[in-house]
């Protein structure tokens, strides 16, 4: 079933009085349950596309249908309410709130949606445990934990409201290899549990986790590659992705 559908989606920025078209009449369909990876060269419009799909930014043209509802015409506050219910975000810089403990960062997002505090607290603790964060870490401030721990915390924050989709923007960009691997394992695990994930990345290792890779170039979809469900150590998957990216001129 289609999670997100765009029709003639376009986005232009005015730079020095001149319009620069980043997304050009883009038609796209993203399915529920997919781990969709968006790749492409710098400045191709990957992040612009992802933030338009997530309601973080408004397109300048076209439409975006999210689970059948049009979101491109919503006001900023309506978009905020839409995001809190339907979207989870994992950023490269984590963007946890420094003045709150890890647990409070997660609960602040959770309490925004649900008034059933007991359930949210229990879910937050269960998710934190599932990503390998012990109770000792829960009450620490973001500046007191490692980058990997912070990123896993931000994944838990993204998941707390059981969103329709998790958007991840370069989730391993600021992490070392081990921490990056752990974060990806977490995303893969939640995807395997049925969670839709849309991820923007430059990193091949991250891209391999997706079952569908979209290559965006010059504001349009240049091509796509279906890799199927992720299986750890699958060398053919790696080759297939590498060949696809070669074709795309990456």
């Amino acid at each position, binding site marked *: 079933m289609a999670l997100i559908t765009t029709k003639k989606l376009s986005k232009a920025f005015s730079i020095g009085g001149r319009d620069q078209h980043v997304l050009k009449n883009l038609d796209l369909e993203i399915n529920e349950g997919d781990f969709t990876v968006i790749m492409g060269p710098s400045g191709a419009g990957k992040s612009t596309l992802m933030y338009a799909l997530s309601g973080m930014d408004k397109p300048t043209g076209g439409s975006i249908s999210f689970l059948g509802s049009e979101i491109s015409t919503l006001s*900023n506050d309506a978009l*905020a309410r839409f995001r809190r219910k339907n979207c989870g975000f994992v950023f490269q810089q984590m963007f946890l*709130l420094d003045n709150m403990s890890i647990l409070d960062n997660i609960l602040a997002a959770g309490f925004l949606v649900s008034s059933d505090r007991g359930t949210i*607290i229990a879910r937050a603790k269960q998710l934190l445990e599932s990503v390998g964060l012990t109770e000792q870490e829960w009450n620490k401030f973001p500046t007191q934990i490692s980058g990997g721990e912070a990123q896993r915390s931000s994944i838990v924050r993204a998941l707390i409201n059981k969103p329709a989709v998790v958007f991840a923007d370069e989730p391993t960009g600021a992490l070392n290899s081990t921490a990056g691997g752990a974060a990806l394992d977490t995303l893969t695990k939640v995807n395997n549990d049925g969670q839709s994930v849309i991820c923007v990345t430059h990193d091949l290792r991250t891209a391999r986790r997706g079952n569908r890779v979209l290559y965006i170039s010059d504001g349009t979809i240049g091509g796509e590659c279906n890799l199927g469900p992720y299986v750890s150590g699958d060398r053919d998957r790696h080759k297939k992705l590498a060949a696809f990216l070669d074709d795309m001129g990456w």
Partner: protein
Amino acid sequence: MKRTFLLAGANIRKAKGQMIILTVLFLIAATLMNIGFALLFNFGNYFDEMAKELHTSDTLVIISQNLWNEETEGFLRDNSTEFEKHSVVLLNGEIPWGENMITSFFMLSDINEARNFSQWKLVSDSQPLAVDGAYIPFGLYIHGHELGNDFVINTTGYGSIHFTINGHTESILSDGVNTPANLFIPTERFEEFYHRFPEYRNYLIFANGVDNIRGLLFGLDELSGFASGFSTESVISGISLEDMSMFRTMMANMTAMIMVVFTLIIALVSLFVVRFRIKNSLEEDITRIGSLKAIGYTSKEIIRSVILQYGTVIFFASMLAIVPTIFLLPLIGNVLASQSGIFWRPGITPEFYVITTVILVLIVWLGTKISARGIKKITPVAALRGESATGKKAKRNRILLSKTKLPLIPALAGKSVFHGFRQSLMIFFIMLAVSFTGMISLVIFYNSTIDLTAFEVIPGGERANSGIIFRPDEDLSALRSEIIAMPEVRDAQFHDFAQTIIDGEFSFISVMDDFDRRVTRNIHRGEFPRADNEVALSGLAANRFDVDIGDEVTVGTDESPFVVTGIFSGMAEDAMVTIYGMLRAQPEFRQSGLNIYLHPGTDSAVFTENLGQQFAAESFMVVNIDAEFEEGAGIFASILSLVGIVILCVAIFVILLILYLVIGATIIRRHRELGIQKAIGFTTGNLMRQISLAFSIPVVLGTIIGVLLGIFYASPLLNIAMRPMGVLAANLLVNNAWMVVAGGIITVLAIGLSLLVTWRIRKISAYKLVTE
């Protein structure tokens, strides 16, 4: 150095809005400080210089010519180094005074009589003296007697005397403030009055080298057989230059003190704000500081640029403040002129502008130096990584969301309060200090404008509605009975002022038959005197004589002691004794004044006029005490009312400016955090409520405590300020409802402003946060 200037300029341009607010804040502080200094040092100096310029003697004495003889002249010669004697005609009568008619004394002088001491001069516009013309004191001009107007004195018993006002004079001792107003008229007219009113001929004496004015007056009175009284036929009165100076500059000094204290509060608050602003900008600009350090700027250069940035703003604000100072000072001078009678021309006072600028720049330099020292400690790499320049300590995680029962937004607001505890504390103290100041000014305003009850008691004078002074040898008892029988009259009590000697010191004494029927209950401790050997003393007199309740003092010529029964509050007299005590102390004393208390609703002006007509033959003068109070206390009240309302408005304006500055800076500083919250689904409204609530907590707490301090301590504090004037219990009214409403208004305005400022959160974009 050029690099430092460039950097400072860039800093100012970057934070234009904040710098403008700081400029306005310091503009207010500098203006108030300029005015305060000018009043405190220039007004008094102006008075002293004018006294010198006019060769003012150190004492003025007015004595009826029929009490003057060789003995009194010898006594005066023995008790002074030099003196000069001028003939004057001393009249009493009614003149228009604002909207009322008041009874006062006037001295007519010959314009052509030369004076070596205590000269006078014409101020502002004047005309040559016409045949019916008069030069009148400037103080009268303030109360509506303008150049070219007809000046009419309705004398008691001799009809109206008309003059044309040809000019206004300025002098020190005979300006109508505390002494009769001196009118200068042509020689021919003076001689006409001099011959027409032989009983009103008096000597106006200017003396130097008098050690004790009280002793001198008592000595003269004693020589005249204690024949002096209220009548212009038997006057012995006087004042020293020192007392006159204190009285005429008192209001200016009081206003100046209030302004300087208030300015210091604003300066202190501004220092907090500057410190906050610097800390904030260091956090915002930490990567920029890193870049500057990386390309070779030294910590000293960066700190110097911050000092220069704020120093420039303060310097600019102080320079700008010269304009409103020059504009406002003459207006304030005019307001004060109604009490001081001084035509003060403050002009330009560069010395005070420099002092103000130096004080404010020093305060800011100190604040900047302390706040910017974090820059020294941080390395370029750490700064580029965005690590704090001010150093962050690990904080406790307060209001755990997993435990709290609070709704999410208030809980997050509470977290912000604890997380930025120092900032919250700063806002709390700013609100407390400024709202407490506001409450003090409200108490001043309320008591000087809305309910003058306390003002009626503060001077200590008996607050009757009307008064009559009978001529000597009348049957006072019968006259009192006749007056008491009038339908408008509620009560009538003899009340006289006399000069006597207490414990060897000349004193002003209040004499009544029955002090228990006094309306002004200004006894502070103990009781009013009842028996003929009892006396109550003013707080100042008790201190001077070093006595307290139960101690004994000698009064007048009686050698047997009087027991001190009470200490009273007030400035009007030194002591109170009953008529029986007074007759013991000074057997020659005769009552003459009768205070009349009217039934509520009676028009005292009409009553007093009728009283004057009915008892024209028996009375020497009638006084509309209600009007005297309204006009006399009204001068003080209107000045204080103005001071009160100005300070209250400035306090509220300062609160709003500071909040605008602090909230604006906070939104900029927390713009990353707000962006994150927007990204995860917080709406602009959620965030506005969160920030406003976080500010409201210290704002409301600070205001509540400021209001409570105002309710409980504003009056006692003002009481302490008035003690040196002899007011032991000012008992200024504190209307709790007014205080609470004012606190409510401050809070509502503060919260309203915080919502208005937080409205700019809508411009913070979650998308920009992740893409920048």
